[in-house]
């Protein structure tokens, strides 16, 4: 601004202030009696909503900068802070809800594509909440998992058409069929693909260690695998996406499985874009791209334009890993997901991962995240049924992802036909995420979706790993309880066992797709 007297500057600032300057989402309430001006909030807030006012000699705040992450509230030593939704309300309008107004103001200011983080917050039916589980009464006894064995072990990979046993009458029969490579999991819960870069090294290390301790697996996501984590390879699924970041021979041979990422539930049909700000030295080394340059993943793999091309990449990866590990293909849940899944399995995938539209993301255009794809429950039921109808269900394991919130969701997913599930958002919640949804800024105040050393040190890998182990152990116990209640002693007896599910308040079409009866039937 040119040299104007101060007062004129202020007037000009007001004149050119954007319409939405004061239409912010949150307000910071500071209890003046409790606040001791210690400035913890100032140091904790990476968005600079809190600041030290030298003139007034006290801590002040700017509500318009608050993104609602609650970091300051959580760490305030005197509990002086409360973060609230702003009570200011537009005139009620069922059609033009405030979110549309705010977005239009922003786009009119910038001409930008609306960018969003984490899973979709839109009000689309959550079928988990409309499915109820069964339990045994009288006719078959329920089982107490505290006293009796309860098997959660799961093997992911292609299963043979039939088993051939050698029996000679005297010795126990021996297996003649050669079994294809499998990923062995002690519990059917895996940590979902979240790339190093999108989340930081401390959390990648925590996931690797937790997966190893739990004897399950975590997925690297598409940003490669830092060499110091190769030692956790027995519990690591390495991902190959269209950008091929950090994909090389050693990487392909470092894990217990390889996953081709075709699509992501939060953003089906589009690629990814890790901004240069997040590419520090370690990320650069792992992705094998220069520091500070954008990491752009094209929408498709440019060597995959057909099912035949997918087959070609699946077998290229098998050749490169000498057929030692299963190859998974991850697709987003879209309208024709069942037919696509059939093609994927026929192309030679040993595992198919279906990611529903409520799945998380570090960054996605909001229009895509909130409007493209279908919920995982419907996709999973459709895929499992289609593969069964075609007699190829055993050729691939099915992993469900995108919107698993609790142990009951896991049980329902397995009853709908999943072999195992991925948890991503729940993984981040376990280490403190509050779903503020600004992962793409690189300023995550919880030290999760950031590579800024000042912020990422807020995640201690020992503590984070312990929390992840606790979460999965707790869920596994709950799964055992629910299985026992149904009179089952093995997760295998639940897989695709839709008789253990009933729908509540669902239409005939929904029940038909889910393949379950209505409650009461």
């Amino acid at each position, binding site marked *: 601004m040119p040299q104007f007297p101060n007062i004129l500057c202020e007037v000009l600032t007001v004149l050119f202030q954007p319409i939405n300057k004061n239409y912010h989402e949150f307000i910071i309430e500071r209890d003046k009696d409790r606040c001791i001006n210690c400035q913890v909030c100032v140091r904790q807030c990476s968005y600079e909503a809190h600041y030290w006012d030298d003139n007034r000699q006290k801590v002040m705040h700017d509500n318009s900068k608050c993104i609602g992450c609650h970091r300051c509230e959580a760490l305030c030593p005197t509990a002086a802070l409360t973060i609230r939704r702003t009570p200011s309300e537009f005139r009620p309008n069922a059609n033009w809800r405030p979110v549309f107004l705010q*977005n239009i103001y*922003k*786009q009119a*200011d*910038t001409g*930008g*594509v*609306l*960018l*969003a983080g984490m899973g979709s917050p839109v009000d689309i039916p959550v079928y988990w909440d409309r499915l109820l589980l069964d339990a045994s009464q009288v006719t078959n006894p329920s089982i107490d998992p505290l006293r009796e064995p309860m098997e959660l072990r799961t093997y992911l990979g292609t299963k043979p058409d039939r088993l051939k046993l050698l029996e000679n009458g005297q010795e126990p029969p021996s297996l003649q069929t050669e079994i294809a490579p499998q990923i062995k999991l002690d519990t059917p819960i895996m940590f979902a693909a979240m790339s190093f870069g999108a989340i930081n090294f401390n959390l990648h290390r925590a996931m690797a260690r937790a997966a190893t301790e739990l004897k399950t697996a975590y997925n690297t996501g598409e940003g490669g695998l830092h060499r110091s984590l190769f030692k956790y390879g027995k519990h690591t699924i390495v991902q190959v996406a*269209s*950008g*091929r970041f950090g*994909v*090389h*021979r*050693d990487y*392909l041979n470092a894990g217990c499985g390889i996953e081709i990422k075709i699509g992501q539930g939060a953003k089906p049909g589009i690629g990814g*874009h890790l*901004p*240069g700000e997040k590419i520090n030295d370690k990320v*650069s080394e792992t992705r*094998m*791209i*220069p520091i500070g*340059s*954008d990491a*752009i993943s*094209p929408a498709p793999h*440019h*060597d995959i334009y057909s099912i035949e091309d997918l087959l*070609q990449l699946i*077998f*290229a990866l098998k*050749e*490169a*890993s*000498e057929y030692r590990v299963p190859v998974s293909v991850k697709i987003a849940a879209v309208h024709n997901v069942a037919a696509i899944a059939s093609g994927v399995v026929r192309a030679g995938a040993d595992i198919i991962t279906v990611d529903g539209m409520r799945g998380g993301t570090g960054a996605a*255009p*909001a229009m895509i995240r909130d409007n493209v794809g279908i919920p995982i429950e419907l996709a999973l039921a459709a895929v499992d049924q289609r593969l069964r109808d075609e007699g190829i269900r055993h050729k691939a394991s099915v992993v469900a992802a995108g919107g698993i919130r609790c142990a009951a969701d896991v049980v329902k997913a397995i009853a709908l036909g999943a072999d195992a599930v991925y948890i991503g958002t729940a993984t981040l919640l376990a280490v403190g995420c509050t779903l503020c*949804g*600004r992962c*793409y*800024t690189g300023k995550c105040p919880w030290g999760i979706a950031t590579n800024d050393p000042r912020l990422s040190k807020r995640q201690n890998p020992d503590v984070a790993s312990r929390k992840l182990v606790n979460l999965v152990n707790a869920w596994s116990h709950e799964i055992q309880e629910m299985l026992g209640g149904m009179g089952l002693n093995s997760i295998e007896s639940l897989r695709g066992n839709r008789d253990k599910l009933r729908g509540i308040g669902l239409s005939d079409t929904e029940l038909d797709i889910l393949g379950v009866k209505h409650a009461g039937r």
Partner: protein
Amino acid sequence: MSTTTTSTAVLDATGQYYKEFNEQIRELVRQGVTEFRLDNVNGQRYIATGLEGDFIFEINGLPGQDLAAFTRGARIRVNGNVQDGVGNTMDDGKIVVDGMGGDVVGYAMRGGAIYIRTDVGYRVGIHMKSYLDRRPTIVIGGKAGDFLGEYMAGGIILLLGMFSDKSDAPITGRGLGTGMHGGVIYVRGNVPEHQLGPGLRSRPVTPEDMQVIEGIVRDYATELNLDAEEIFSESFTKIRPFSHRPYGNMYVPT
């Protein structure tokens, strides 16, 4: 089928399925063989895929899809044409094709060199990237199809347009360098403006560029027994990204 001499293993690919054929190669690698001559190759896929080390391959015939995918270090010479996906995501090494290349040559490669004597198909050099001292190079002696160097993030593509079977075709197809955010594409002669991706322009080369081009051309000419001076008889132009962050300002936070 195999005759192992003191240094070179000679394999006959006649009638062999790729799985068994490649397993034979891997077995010989495990035994310490480093030089191979593969005869009568006819569409076998994934030859030298995932190999790491200083191997030498001479391939007679037509290798199938994904020749040398994920390879690190092998030097491969093909006496004939190749199918699609040569050098897919390759890390290092050198592939010389005395013939045509297919589609998707050098997809996402981050090191080494691929020399093709004549034409290539679509989507060649997509998402090539460079890292530290690795600077992947693709040289095409003939003409290229659409989307050459799309999403290019690093490395060098040199397009000569000289040894082509397509006399009527332009030197490159549509969308040259679309979305490129690193690396450089050198073209012998000129590229019609409308063949370039959005926002790109071709410019004359500098003396420094000519030094780079000269080094590459001399090696290319030696490998394929061509006359380097004839290649230099025409001037070169270059296409560079207009930004290394082409999509940096596209978004607004919700």
